């Protein structure tokens, strides 16, 4: 039967939705923590700049949250619409974290509504900050629960299949599968990191565009510091992910690293291109892969030779791996230089070209997130549920997926442009200098 088309278009549509949603989802998970930190610093130091920073971030955040919510709903429904066979099985085993995610989302939504509409309503600022805690927790836990489902797809457990029937189902064991800790921690920490660098890029951009207000300098310094902390944690957790892969999903690691033959003292291949099955122009770090996989330069690392040809993921994931890792390292170096440089009074880190590099760091971080997710998803191929269900067996048999693909592509285009236009107009119409002045006028009436 001609179901290949439906499978193909289902994959493209899912990839498109996820790639679009992940931008807003990442910001949605990361930014509440940034708002919380800024507001906390503002209250502690009694510095109105940080409070205003939190307030302005919160304003922009609402727009991204709205797009994140609707695209998240889209992917939630598309899972059932495009992969009904998978969802039937998944519903039986891994529905619990999906269900929990809606509660986390619920919790976040309620308190976000309250938080947004209670600015200056409380005498005690701390009470208002307290309302943000459930928002940040809800946002992060949404990511935790939904990533548990993704982890389950990589390392399914908590059930047995006997004669095609699911038996001995244990939802808790399914949730706490071996892929879960590294994946969940990696997703959450990179969301924080990306949010910090995106906000840093905005602050740097304002400084480049003529505003020399200390508000932006504080914002930039704060976000670069946070970005540095989170990028170091990301690197560490990324290293743990390598160890998880070596232990439980060696084919994914081997394909991402172009590690063809099982060997000891395995080197780590960076960059390079693949032509006719040979790696060219690559940078080899001796013992690197053995270290990444087992923390031991002599350890044996399983190569692609151990797997049947039809169970090896596409080798282009190596490029995705490189993009992700190099951007991550680059951002760690850039933010370290900035932090160190500011403390040392280096003029160079406040120069125009350095600020342009920081601006560039915003989109780069988003690209790293995208590359990371493509690596995670393509690296699991050909499985939708590793060693249990193949992608082509999971897809819908409906014939209209291509039409839906076009409709959704149009929708994301409209939403993407719309959110950018609205956000930039929102902040251009109300620059920070203006707002600070307005607030002083208002306060002036109260104080004197």
């Amino acid at each position, binding site marked *: 039967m001609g179901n290949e088309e439906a499978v193909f278009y289902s994959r493209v549509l899912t990839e498109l939705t996820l790639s679009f949603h992940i931008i807003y989802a990442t910001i949605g998970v990361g930014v509440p923590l940034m708002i919380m930190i800024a507001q906390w610093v503002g209250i502690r130091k009694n510095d109105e700049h940080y409070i205003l920073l939190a307030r302005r971030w919160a304003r922009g955040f609402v727009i991204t949250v709205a797009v994140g919510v609707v695209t998240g709903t889209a992917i939630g429904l598309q899972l059932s619409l495009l992969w009904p066979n998978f969802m039937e099985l998944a519903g039986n085993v891994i529905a619990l974290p999906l269900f929990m995610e809606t509660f986390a989302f619920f919790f976040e939504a309620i308190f976000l509504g309250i938080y947004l509409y209670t600015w200056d309503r409380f005498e005690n600022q701390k009470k208002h900050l307290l309302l943000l805690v459930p928002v940040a927790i809800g946002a992060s836990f949404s990511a935790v629960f939904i990533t548990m489902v993704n982890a389950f797809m990589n390392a399914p457990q908590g059930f047995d299949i006997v004669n095609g029937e699911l038996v001995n189902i244990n939802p808790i064991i399914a949730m706490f599968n071996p892929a879960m800790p590294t994946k969940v921690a990696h997703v959450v920490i990179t969301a924080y990191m990306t949010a910090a660098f995106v906000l840093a890029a905005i602050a740097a951009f304002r400084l480049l565009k003529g505003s020399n207000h200390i508000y932006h300098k504080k914002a930039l310094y704060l976000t670069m510091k946070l970005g540095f902390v989170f990028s*170091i944690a990301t690197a560490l957790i990324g290293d743990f992910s390598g160890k998880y892969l070596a232990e439980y999903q060696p084919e994914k690691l081997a394909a991402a690293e172009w590690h063809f033959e099982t060997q000891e003292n395995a080197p780590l291949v960076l960059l390079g291109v693949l032509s006719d099955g040979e790696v060219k122009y690559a940078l080899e770090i001796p013992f690197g892969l053995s270290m990444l996989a087992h923390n031991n330069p002599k350890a044996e690392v399983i190569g692609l030779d151990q797997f049947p040809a039809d169970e090896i993921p596409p080798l282009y994931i190596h490029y995705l791996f490189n993009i992700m890792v190099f951007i991550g390292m680059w951002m760690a170096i850039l933010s370290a230089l900035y932090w160190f440089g500011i403390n040392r*009074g280096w003029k160079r880190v406040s120069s125009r070209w350095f600020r342009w590099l920081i601006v560039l760091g915003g989109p780069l971080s988003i690209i790293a997130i995208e590359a990371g997710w493509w690596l995670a998803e393509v690296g699991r191929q050909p499985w939708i549920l590793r060693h249990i269900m193949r992608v082509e067996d999971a897809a819908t048999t409906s014939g209209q997926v291509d039409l839906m693909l076009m409709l959704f592509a149009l929708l994301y285009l409209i939403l993407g442009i719309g959110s950018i236009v609205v956000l930039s107009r929102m902040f251009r119409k109300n620059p920070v200098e203006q707002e600070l002045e307005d607030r002083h006028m208002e306060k002036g009436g109260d104080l004197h």
Partner: protein
Amino acid sequence: MTDFIIFYAPFIILIAAIVVAFLVAPMDGSVNKDE
């Protein structure tokens, strides 16, 4: 050791990073002084 790294260490790092973030966030002497 491997089990510890795969199952527990990621969460320890994650929580530690959040704590460190709160600790370093208020240190803004270097940008505040040139006001």
